[in-house]
């Protein structure tokens, strides 16, 4: 039983991270109908940037653990958001009118570029996050010892998801984003500045992705430059699972995938853990392309 709870909370934490990354994919896809391959690399950048800021500025030491982490997250979110906006400007905007597959290739190229940029700057080895930032305590729930870090991560992702959800549902700009996702042409005709909506999506999505990167660093203690690839593909699976283009779907999909994966690793086999996610992806696309909650169809007529 204890093992089950450990795995469950573990899965929730990882799932929360997947969800945050998945939101980036789903928002971009909803508005541009494009799979932003480079999104996983923005996540990696966030992780590395967090590492740099933590060690270089000694945020935790200066401001104390809690405020330090908050400031760190804000800085990372801001910076990665800017990179995201720049990415859109350089690699995607010129191809708005081009056939969709050109944009896909461009996304792939951008992903390769960003990933290698990170590698060149930081080197190919993994980097270790300072371990003693947050108090190494845990909480006892039903007699199960759960590290504080894990709880914080789950809590933080839930807070951010709730925030995004409210933003999308309740604000005018959020509604504009939803409108542009449904029909860009009609949205334009209604006076919505679609370019600004796209910019906003490329600020929010990457910001969340970057945050997820920092979370991985805090949770696992180390980051390496290929993690964007693995996490990115899994997060994409999560987005598809929940229904690509559907924001609540990405949240549900992420958490669900995290839990499935944790359970699978514990009870089936840890070596095949990564393959599980890919199998889930392929199965969904074959059997139920619209995902659990989604409206977008994967197949053409």
């Amino acid at each position, binding site marked *: 039983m204890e093992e089950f709870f450990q795995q469950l909370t573990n899965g929730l934490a990882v799932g929360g991270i997947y969800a945050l990354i998945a939101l980036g994919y789903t928002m971009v896809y909803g508005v541009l109908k*494009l*799979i932003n391959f480079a999104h996983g690399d923005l996540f990696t950048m966030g992780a590395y940037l967090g590492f740099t800021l933590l060690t270089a500025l000694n945020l935790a030491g200066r401001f104390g653990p809690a405020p330090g982490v908050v400031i760190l997250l804000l800085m990372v979110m801001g910076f990665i958001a800017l990179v995201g906006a720049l990415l859109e400007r350089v690699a995607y905007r010129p191809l708005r009118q081009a056939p*969709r597959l050109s944009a896909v290739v461009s996304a792939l*190229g*951008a*992903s390769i570029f960003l990933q*290698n940029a990170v590698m060149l700057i930081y080197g190919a080895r993994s980097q270790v996050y300072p371990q003693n930032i947050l108090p190494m305590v845990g909480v006892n729930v039903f007699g199960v010892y759960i590290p504080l870090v894990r709880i914080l991560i789950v809590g933080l992702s839930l807070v951010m998801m709730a925030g995004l959800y409210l933003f999308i549902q309740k604000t005018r700009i959020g509604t504009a984003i939803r409108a542009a996702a449904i029909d860009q042409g009609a949205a334009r005709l209604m006076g919505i500045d679609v370019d600004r909506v796209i910019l906003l999506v490329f600020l929010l999505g990457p910001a969340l992705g970057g945050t997820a990167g920092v979370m991985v660093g805090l949770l696992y203690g180390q980051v390496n430059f290929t993690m964007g690839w693995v996490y990115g593909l899994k997060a994409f699976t999560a987005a598809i699972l929940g229904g690509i283009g559907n924001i609540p779907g990405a949240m549900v999909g992420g958490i669900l995938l995290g839990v499935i994966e944790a359970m699978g690793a514990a009870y089936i086999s840890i070596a095949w853990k990564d393959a599980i996610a890919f199998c889930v992806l*392929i199965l969904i696309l074959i059997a139920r392309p619209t995902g659990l909650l989604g409206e977008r169809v994967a197949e*053409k007529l």
Partner: protein
Amino acid sequence: MIRLDQRSITYLWYPIVAGVLASLPMFLNAYWVDVLNSVGLYAILGISLNLIVGHAGLFNLGHAAFYAVGAYTAAILNTKFQIPVMWLMPLCAIAAGSFALLIARPIIHLRGDYLCIVTIGVGEIVRIALINNIFGITGGANGIFGIGRPSVFGFVIRKPHEFFYLIWIFLAFTIFVFRRLEHSRFGRALNYLREDDVAAEGSGINVSHYKLAAFVVGAAWAGMAGNIFAAKMTTISPESFSFWESVLVFTLIILGGSGNNAGVLLGAFLIVGLPELFRDFANARMLVFGAAMVLMMIFRKGGILPAPQRKYKLAGVTGGQGEGRG
């Protein structure tokens, strides 16, 4: 007096280039010959992937999986049953082609970007399966070693410049065969479904069948390339068949010229040759290629050497009134 019209000049190029290429091993040391061997193998892979990506317009980013199936088939059958590697060529083609048929069939109707993601997933599943020693025969992360050398009519091919001829002759053969494929009813069908698959189906073309066929033929050829690779390296392991290999082959097509064999060859030279020529470049090469892909899509979608139009001989055909052009 020999008339040098446009057609003759084109045909003159082939023997010249072939002659230059054939004499290269005599001038270069083993290291550079091996570089050329790499170029050759990547070109073969590129041409096989080009059928799927350039001609049929299906974005396959998991081509390394087919390469792996071919290589491992050769490796396993050779080390376990001592069957000479060359004899295993057709088997590697069949193994890779069957594998492609198996996995492509359920996913072939997926739209472009989704198909792309699934092929990535398939490539990864294959690699993970290889590392985990699936069915107990793949040797796990260490792979398989002790693969035999190919022998042609009793002559054993061992040294780089011997492999040069094997690889480049196979490459020439590949270009020859694929050129025929591309200038045929089959090649046209692939182009039609690339341009507009609804209109292609509506014109009477069995779109599902041809998409599958593109995958199977491309995979089968990659399988044969895998055979040569296994024999050349004598040791193969899953890391040679990672996603990045698939990306490399894909990139060389996109950059060099999709839908065009000359472009693919050029792409192979760029992708493999440039990093060798400029060592500092090698570290940043993926960075440059990534940027190049973005720029290429923005400025020159077809690649450096875009696909030329097929020419038809119209003069002399009943009812024909068009100009004859070779």
